[in-house]
């Protein structure tokens, strides 16, 4: 199995330090080649390797010297797995609430905060909160406005960029910048804002160059790359396997990448299936030493090596030649199929696993938890959905809504289930936290598009970079732009994002980790960023309300928490301001401390 299988923090709870002897398949590709080619020459002949799993099942892995000849047939039993079956319909059920019994309704303040963060990544303004509390029946028009706002695409783009393992640099030693990588990011934002039909959205990222819109194919080349690798055949091999793995995981919700060195140990995907899927992309990658990839796909006519399998996944051991084909599990591939055929087959109304995968991810983004617990793997090693009928209904809803993602969002947020009082709390991501802090202090720069902004970094961090890697955008107003527009360096995430579990863009990430650590607290308590925010907040509040503690506390609470303070909170706040003024240089500084407390509070960081 390959190193680039997407990460899944959600499985932390199943980890066992003390579990019994387990072999894992984590050797990355080139390493597999090294190991099985030289270190253990024995392994190069075909045989079966027994894997002991934690639940004491043993699975035979077929290691073949001729993966095409030894390819196992797909059986009817193989197709019986829930995720491989056609979507099941449940007669008489037409909405989410037909599948889940509705719970009591949330209060308007909770609801407006929830839906605004959910659809735009930003908190509602106090005016929006007051207006909604006066007219709670206006929920639908609030939702329509949020979906129509450019803030929607800016927020939801990060969800997709996590899946695309997107960064604007190569990674590895030189971590060179990809000067046009931002164009793909803007393409994603605009596609979401324009509600580009979702099938087209996916298709154009796989084969947009064959469909008259090449920018989306930046998806394929967003991976890490080592242009100075001394063997460019190895580089090409690693890149193509990454692309294939990512397309398999994002588009099919399967760990296709597990089949690059041997047949998939659990799902009916053979090693030959993997290289047949890869063959669709073989003519898009022909790297030149020290030359960067992309930014978008093109088809090379000359100099493209014949498509083959690779024995043990070793780039030095090409095997039998093969033709581009869909994984056999999913049926026949039409003759003369190219990448555009593949793209249209993946994102089609007849591809149940694609629809399920996307519906599951959408549910996760709205509710914090997916319906099938492992969103990057709906195969045998994944988890069955907790509510299979609902997942299938939602999956079918995507083409039914004419592939409009916005309509699907609306179906979800208009459900009683979404509007209930007790949804699982969602923690803001690092990007959302930063945007929210800039927003409540009235400093968010809403300029859209263009090259990523290089934020100032603490000296301790910038000192660890190579020369020319820590240039900062000279225009300070740019530093207050939304997080989606900040420069995404693969080897160095911004500390605020990294501390709050932004994935490392090494492989497709379908679900982020959520860690809670002391360094996060230090960042929000002590950083220059946090104190700049609270100083501005305090200055603005002070200018409006003077030293009227009740008005200050009320406004600060409305701004930061989208609700009125309780009487108890006002009293506690007054007491704090009085005492803190003695410890701080002046009243305004004490007020800034009050705001700092609000921004550090659990209520600010977790959305109900």
């Amino acid at each position, binding site marked *: 199995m390959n190193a680039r299988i997407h990460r899944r923090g959600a499985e932390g709870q199943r980890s066992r330090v003390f579990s019994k002897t387990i072999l894992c398949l984590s050797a990355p590709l080139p390493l597999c080649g090294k190991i099985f080619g030289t*270190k253990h020459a024995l392994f190069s002949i075909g045989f079966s390797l027994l894997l002991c799993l934690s639940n004491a099942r043993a699975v035979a892995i077929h290691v073949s010297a001729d993966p095409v000849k030894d390819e196992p047939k797909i059986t009817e039993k193989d197709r019986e797995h829930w995720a491989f079956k056609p979507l099941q319909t449940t007669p008489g059920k037409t909405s989410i609430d037909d599948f889940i019994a509705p719970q009591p309704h949330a209060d308007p303040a909770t609801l407006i905060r929830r839906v605004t963060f959910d659809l735009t990544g930003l908190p509602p303004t106090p005016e929006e909160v007051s207006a909604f509390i006066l007219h709670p029946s206006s929920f639908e028009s609030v939702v329509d406005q949020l979906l129509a706002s450019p803030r929607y695409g800016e927020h939801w783009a990060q969800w997709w960029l996590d899946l695309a393992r997107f960064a604007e640099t190569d990674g590895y030693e030189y971590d060179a910048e990809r000067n046009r990588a931002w164009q793909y990011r803007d393409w994603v934002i605009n596609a979401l804002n324009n509600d580009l039909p979702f099938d087209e959205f996916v298709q154009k990222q796989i084969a947009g160059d064959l469909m008259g819109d090449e920018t989306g194919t930046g998806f394929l080349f967003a991976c890490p790359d080592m242009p100075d690798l001394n063997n460019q055949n190895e580089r090409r091999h690693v890149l193509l396997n990454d692309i294939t793995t990512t397309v398999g995981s994002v588009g099919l919700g399967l760990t296709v990448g597990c089949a690059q060195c041997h047949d998939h140990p659990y799902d009916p995907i053979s090693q030959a299936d993997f290289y047949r899927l890869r063959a669709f992309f073989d003519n898009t990658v022909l790297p030149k030493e020290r030359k960067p990839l992309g930014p978008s796909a093109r088809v090379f006519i000359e100099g493209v090596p014949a498509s083959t399998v690779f024995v043990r996944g070793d780039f030095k051991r090409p095997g039998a030649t093969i033709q581009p084909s869909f994984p056999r599990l999913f049926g026949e591939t039409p003759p003369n199929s190219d990448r555009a055929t593949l793209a249209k087959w993946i994102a089609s109304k007849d591809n149940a696993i694609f629809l399920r995968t996307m519906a599951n991810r959408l549910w996760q983004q709205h509710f914090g938890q997916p319906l099938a617990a492992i969103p990057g793997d709906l195969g045998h090693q994944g988890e069955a959905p907790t509510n299979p009928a609902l997942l299938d209904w939602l999956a079918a809803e995507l083409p039914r809504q004419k592939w409009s993602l916005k309509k699907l969002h609306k179906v979800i947020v208009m459900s009683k289930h979404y509007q209930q009082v007790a949804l699982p709390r969602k923690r803001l991501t690092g990007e959302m936290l930063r945007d929210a802090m800039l927003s409540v202090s009235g400093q968010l720069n809403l300029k859209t598009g263009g090259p990523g902004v290089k934020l100032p970094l603490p000296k301790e961090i910038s000192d660890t970079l190579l020369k020319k890697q820590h240039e900062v955008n000279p225009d300070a107003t740019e530093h207050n732009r939304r997080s989606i527009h900040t420069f995404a360096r693969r080897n160095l995430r911004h500390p605020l994002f990294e501390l709050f579990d932004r994935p490392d863009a090494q492989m497709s990430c379908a679900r982020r980790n959520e860690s809670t650590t002391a360094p996060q607290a230090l960042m929000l308590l002590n950083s220059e960023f946090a104190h700049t925010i609270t100083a501005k907040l305090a200055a603005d509040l002070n200018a409006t309300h003077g030293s009227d503690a009740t008005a200050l506390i009320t406004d600060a609470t409305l701004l930061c928490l989208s609700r009125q303070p309780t009487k108890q909170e006002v009293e*506690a706040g007054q007491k704090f301001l009085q005492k803190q003024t003695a410890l701080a240089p002046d009243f305004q500084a004490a007020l800034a401390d009050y705001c700092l407390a609000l921004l550090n509070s659990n209520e600010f960081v977790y959305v109900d």
Partner: protein
Amino acid sequence: MHTAPTTLSRRRLLGTTAMGLSSVALSSLMAESRSHFPAKAKRVIWLFMHGGPSHVDLFDPKPELIRHAGKLLPESYGTVETRRKVAQNPLLAPVKLFRKHGQSGIEISDFLPHMAGIADEMCVIRSCHGDSVNHPQSVYQMNTGSIQMGKPSLGSWVSYGLGSENADMPAFVVLPDPGGGLKGGPPAWGSGFLPATYQGTTMRAGDNPILHLQSPQSSARQRATLDLIQQMNAQHQAKREADSELDARIRAYELAFRMQSAAPEAVDISRETEATKHLYGIDDPTTKEFGTRCLLARRMIERGVRFVQLYSGDTNGWDAHENVMKNHTEYCARTDKPVAGLIRDLKQRGLLEDTLVIWGGEFGRMPMSEKGVGRDHNPWGYTTVLFGAGVKHGHVHGATDDFGLRASEDKVHIHDLHATILHLLGLDHDRLTFRLNGLDQKLTGVEECHVVKNILA
């Protein structure tokens, strides 16, 4: 005199992931017996010589290389994969004289007079090998077992497996070279697919050892703000059902507050004696910087940090392509005395008995010359030196071929080295696992590897 282990593990206090709550609960139950079997080493200091020190000029004498200097590598050695196409270059004799040292008679070159003085403490592994001729891939492999970016580092596996011995300090601390520019960057000490809480925390000498550690406010003023935060959090939680996530965040703030005093105390060397400072070379401008970090490493482990990693070398570091004599003269001068001082200091304090110290780079260097007097990367055979807990002293393990090109006897792959380090810490590399994509991942990967039993004391 290290801090006694506390029942409140760092994982309990510092590390809760939303999804990892059950594992946190599990770990706190098991805080008393985390290891798989009794450990010889309780903690690790890893002195990482970034860029690749030359084994054939430091720890691996090769008389044949002197005899064949200026000639080509014999054809019987076959094709050699190199980074800079040096396979056809003439062989370069060791640029320094080797001598036998100590009762063990271990041969060490004149580049390292101070380390030569602790030869009898050394376990010299001359047969290490890895899989890539490139820096970043090799830095990753030495740290994570994998030549690809993004896997969990050894330090993060150890802190995941064992936690910290001090609730106020991170379990895994990295002291980077102040010159910066590590090839491959921070992913070298990253936690990969393990929760972020297990990644290395970078610390520096001076007033601000951890990012954002220093409050811009007085302690009393910050405490008052923190009290208000916790008051808000208590009210927030009271209105909601019991939630360990919210609870974890409340505790993380208290830990952060304590770290603000614990971490600066850990890096404050003002009360160390002049004799100690001299031992580490802190009184000499050449050795002051690395000596200070070596002393910090001792102070960290005294305070219960489980795993400390120091890097020597900026973006070029020990990477002696141009001129081995010039490069290694400079880097040995900076590090030789501090390393020897650290080992002597650990020994005199009784810490060497249960502390493992590792000295080595991401690879060694080629016997062939580059540009006449330099040497290219060599992952096929090189030296790593271990000191302290659980390993033989005054001992040499394995060998490279006659020219120092490839490991040839008792070979130790990086995975074997990792398995051995985990073993010394009481962890079985086959049982220290993390579930990802339905499979239990481990540091040493899929292929067979072995604890190097012959070096165990």
